[in-house]
C-alpha cells in the first residue's frame, strides 16, 4: 500500500515564486524514503503540505489514503513529525514535553522509556530552555515517536546532532521500517540519506528530478568507478580494448588508470595489467561519490559547463 502519495503538487507564493512545482511521487509502506535536495529546493514546503501547515496551490498530497488537507486529523493520528525550523517550550521539562505529546495524541507512552531511547533520559527533569541543539533535536524526535506512528516524517533530522546522535537517528529510522513503519527522511546531506534510505527522490528548485534507489542513481548517472593500478614499470603490450565495460585507459610511468562502467570489468582490468608483464604494487578504486551524483542531478557544480553549452 502507498504510505505517502503526492500528486502534481504545486505551491506558489505570490505570482511567480514556485516553492514546489508539479511534484509527484509515492512512498511505499515499510520503506525508508530519502527526500534529498539543496536548501530551498522545496523539501520543507512539501512536508508542510503533508502536515497541513500550508495549503497547496494545485495538486494534492495524501498519507495512508487520507487527504492531507481535508483529513488532517486522520493524517496526524498516523504520522509522527520532526519538523524543521521548530522550537520547543522553554519552561517545560523533557518529560513534560513527552507527556504533552502523549496527552494531545491520546497515547500512553512511557516518557522515560522514550527519552531513554533517544538518549536524553538523564535530562528528563531539566527544562528544554537549557537544552543544547542536539538535545532539543533528540527531544523533538522523542515527541515524533509518541503513539508509535505508522509514518515518521523527519525534516532535516540530523541538523544539530553529533555523529553519535546521527547514528542513533539511523537506528531509530531503520528499526521503525523493520517494524513495518514508513520513514520519510528529508535532508540536504546526501551521505545521511544514502546510509538509511531504500529509495531517494531528488528535488531541485521546486521540481522533482528523479526517484530511484541509490544503486539505480549510480547506474543512471553512468559515471564509472576509476580504477588506478600502481605498477613498477609501464606495461609493454597492454591489451584491454576487448574488456566489456572498461573505458578511458591511460598509461603513465608508474600507473595504469581505467574507468569501469561495469563492476565486473574491474578484476579483468587488473588481470590484464598483470598479464602485460608488470608487477602490481597497489590497486585503488574510486567509486563516484554520491556528492558527484547529487551534483549531476542538481547541476550545482556543472552549472558553468552548461552555460557554456547554452552559449
Amino acid at each position, binding site marked *: 500500500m502507498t504510505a505517502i502519495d503526492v500528486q502534481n503538487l504545486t505551491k506558489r507564493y505570490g505570482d511567480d515564486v514556485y516553492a514546489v512545482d508539479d511534484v509527484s511521487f509515492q512512498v511505499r509502506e515499510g520503506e525508508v524514503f530519502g527526500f534529498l535536495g539543496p536548501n530551498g529546493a522545496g523539501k520543507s514546503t512539501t512536508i508542510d503540505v503533508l502536515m*497541513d501547515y500550508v*495549503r497547496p496551490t494545485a495538486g494534492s498530497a495524501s498519507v495512508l489514503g487520507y487527504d492531507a488537507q481535508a483529513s488532517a486529523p486522520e493524517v496526524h493520528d498516523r504520522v509522527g513529525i520532526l519538523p524543521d525550523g521548530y522550537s520547543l517550550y522553554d519552561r517545560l521539562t523533557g518529560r513534560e514535553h513527552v507527556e*504533552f505529546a502523549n496527552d494531545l495524541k491520546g497515547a500512553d507512552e512511557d516518557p522515560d522509556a522514550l527519552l531513554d531511547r533517544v538518549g536524553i533520559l538523564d535530562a528528563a527533569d531539566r527544562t528544554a530552555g537549557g537544552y543544547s541543539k542536539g538535545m532539543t533535536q533528540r527531544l523533538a524526535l522523542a515527541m515524533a515517536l509518541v503513539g508509535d506512528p505508522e509514518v515518521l516524517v523527519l525534516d532535516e533530522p540530523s541538523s544539530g546532532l553529533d555523529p553519535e546522535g546521527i547514528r542513533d537517528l539511523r537506528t531509530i529510522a531503520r528499526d521503525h521500517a523493520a517494524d513495518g513503519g514508513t520513514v520519510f527522511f528529508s535532508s540536504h546531506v546526501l551521505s545521511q540519506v544514502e546510509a538509511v534510505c531504500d529509495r531517494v527522490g531528488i528535488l531541485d528548485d521546486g521540481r522533482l528530478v528523479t526517484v530511484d534507489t541509490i544503486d539505480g542513481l549510480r547506474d543512471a548517472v553512468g559515471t564509472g568507478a576509476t580504477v588506478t593500478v600502481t605498477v613498477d614499470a609501464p606495461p609493454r603490450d597492454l591489451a584491454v580494448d576487448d574488456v566489456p565495460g572498461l573505458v578511458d585507459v591511460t598509461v603513465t610511468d608508474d600507473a595504469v588508470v581505467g574507468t569501469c562502467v561495469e563492476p565486473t570489468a574491474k578484476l579483468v582490468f587488473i588481470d590484464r595489467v598483470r598479464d602485460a608483464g608488470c608487477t602490481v604494487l597497489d590497486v585503488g578504486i574510486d567509486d563516484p561519490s554520491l556528492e558527484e551524483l547529487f551534483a549531476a542531478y542538481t547541476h550545482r557544480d556543472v552549472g558553468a559547463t552548461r552555460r557554456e553549452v547554452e552559449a
Partner: protein
Amino acid sequence: MSWRVIARREYRDAVHSSLVWGVVALVAAMVAVTSLVPLVVPQFDGDVLSGLGAATEFAAMLVPVVALVAAYLAIAGERESGSIRVLLGLEPRRGTVVLGKFVGRAAVVAVGLTVGFALAAVPTAIAYGGLPVVAFAGIVALTCALGVAFVGLAVGISAAAATRGRAMTLGIGAYLALALLWDLVPQGAHLVAEGAAPAGSVPGWFVLLQGLSPSGAYSALVQAAVHATEPSYPGIAGAVAGSPPTYLHWTVFVAVLALWTALPLLAGYVTFSRSDLG
C-alpha cells in the same frame, strides 16, 4: 479533549513564568489604592461603594491592558518561535488550538484578577470598617468578564497576526480604540445630534453607545450590580432624563461583552485556519 490539554499547558506556563503573579500584584495594588481615594478626597463622602466604584473606573482602563499583554502572543508568539509546528504536528485542528489558548489564558487572567481583588479587599475593608460582600463579588465577577473579553480579543488578534510585531500593533490599536478613545464616540454623536456636549441628563442612546465597548459595557454592568444591592446608587439609566428606554437593560450589556469575547476569537480563528504557516 485536546483543547483542555492545551489550556492546561497555557495556564501552567503562565504560573511558571510568574505572569499570573504580576497580574495579581498589579491588580491588588491598583484596587487597594483607588478604592481608598474617596477617603482622602474631601468632596466625596467616604462610602465603601463609591470606593469600589472608583476602583472599577480604573479597572475599566487597566484590565484591558493586563488581558492584552497576557494573551497577545498566545499564537503569534508560537508562530514566530516555530513551536506552532510542533503543536500543530500533535493537534492539527486549528480551532482546538485557538480554543485551548483562549481558555488557558482566560483562566490565568481571571485567577489573577480574583486573587488580586481578594488581596485588595483586606485594606479596603479595614479602611471603611466593612465590605459589601455581594456587591464586591459582583464587581469581581464582572471584572473577570471584562478580562476574559479582552483575552478573547487578544487571542483573536494573535491568531490572525503572522508575527509578534503585527500582533502588538493590533493589540495597541484595539486598546486605544476600545478602552481609551471609545468615549469620544457618544460624545461626538451627542455634539452632532444635539449641537452641544452633554450636560446634566443624557438621552438613552447616549448611554447605549457608551456601553457598546467592552469597558463601557463593564461600567454599565457594574452600575447595574451596585444599584441592585444598594438602590440609592444610580443604575444604568441613572443619567437618562425621564423614563429610560427598554434597551438600557443589563442583559444588553452582557450580550455586548459576550460578543466582544466571541467575535474577535471567531474572526481570528477563521484567518488562522486559512493561513499558511511558512
